[in-house]
């Protein structure tokens, strides 16, 4: 039976983001800077540990990763 592959959604709080660029290296290829603030290259992605690390380490706590269908927060966890 066909099952949808798990997808994650990347959200960036553009007001909280201060453009440190930390996510650009940690989640290489997944994030970009636009006018000095981070944006996901694609909001919906297949699971990627680098994106989890970026959400866990963002100094401004500006990145949230959710399970796309349920909306459950995957990172940051604390």
């Amino acid at each position, binding site marked *: 039976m066909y099952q949808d592959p798990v997808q994650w959604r990347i959200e960036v709080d553009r007001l909280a983001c201060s453009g440190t*660029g*930390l996510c*650009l290296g*940690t989640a290489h290829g997944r994030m970009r*800077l636009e006018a000095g603030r981070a944006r996901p290259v694609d909001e919906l992605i297949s699971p990627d540990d680098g994106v989890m*690390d970026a959400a*866990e380490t963002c*100094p401004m706590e500006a990145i949230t990763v959710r399970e796309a269908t349920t909306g459950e927060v995957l990172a940051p966890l604390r």
Partner: protein
Amino acid sequence: MHESLGFQLSAMNASQKVEIMTVTDSAGPPKYPFGTVVRLDLHRRYLELCRNEPVSRVTMPYGGEAWLITGYHEIKQFLADPRFSSHAATAHDTARVTPLPLRPGNLLSMDPPDHGRIRKVVAHAFRPRIVSQLADRMRALVTAELDTMENAGPPGDLVQRLAIPLPVRMIVELFGVPYEERAEFRRFSDVFVATSAHTKEEIDEARDGLETFLRKLIAKRRGNLSDDLLSVLIEALDAGQLSETEAVRTGIGVLMAGHETSLSMISNVSFLLLSQRDLFVQLSHDPALMDPAIEEMLRIIPLRSVGSFPRRASEDIEIGGVLIRRGETVIFQRAAGDRDERVFETPDTIRFDRESNPHLGFGHGMHFCLGASLARAELKVALEELTARFPTLRLTGPAEDVPWKPGLIARAPAALPVTW
């Protein structure tokens, strides 16, 4: 009018001028660093390079040639690209300004995915909302130190009474170093951050000494965990999130940065405000300028004496129209990029009213300063208390007489004798 720091810098000494002339005659790339480090001056050559050749070739004191990046956009591109490997730069043939390359296993010498795995262990403790809970502690500490200075003086020494106690106490508490053991730690830390002030052997010995110190701390703290960073590292170690070497070296990195870097910066900021005293007066009269003033000083002060930690290209990468080949070493001068006229209007002028100040004082990319919030909070508390309590504060003599600590990674005055 504010006296421009850059204007002061433009007065090059004779040996620097001679060097520039010989460089154009010689066959190889110019020798790096370009000249003696003087106070908070940024060597003029950086600004010429930023304008004309933001990615250029230099010959390093150790390990041969490297690329030097001095342009703002080029530095940001470099720092955001993990294909420039910090780990590869731990190899002993890496071109560099320090006698030894960094050891592997420290956050600063890591690449993804290791870097993210370790950084998330320690990141929580340094987030703005966690650090803001420390503000009252900071203020109490600074008040007590300044009480002591006021009662004993004038004169007083801002390095001993402000720049050392505040960051040392904060990082020691955050980390969980027993207060009575901080002297042992301090013994190694000055050597650890040397460029030319100590030999390779002395630096290696200090690194070993610090690693032993950390291992002892970890052993003692086991079974007595609290909410400090040492406990966080031990829990992560036991959970298999990082190795013992990674815990020890990351711990040292955090301690060193939280301590040497912040105390240097508090000293430098105090020096800058008192050597161009109209800036100090502005801050005393208008405390609302504090936040933008701190950002402006983070931009203008070249905290690093020379260059940066190196990274090496893991493949061919183009930056600013220059092809960096796989294996080649790259360093950057952040302070040059932060005076890039493509980004900052009148970049050499210190202005507390800049509308936008996207400086790179805390770096950029995945190695963005872990302690940025803590450092900002410490600077703010230190300067608020200083300007409010001592509006007549001034150096006891000419700024040129202030002694500096040469040959360290970060610039810092050895003492800041003040009166009021």
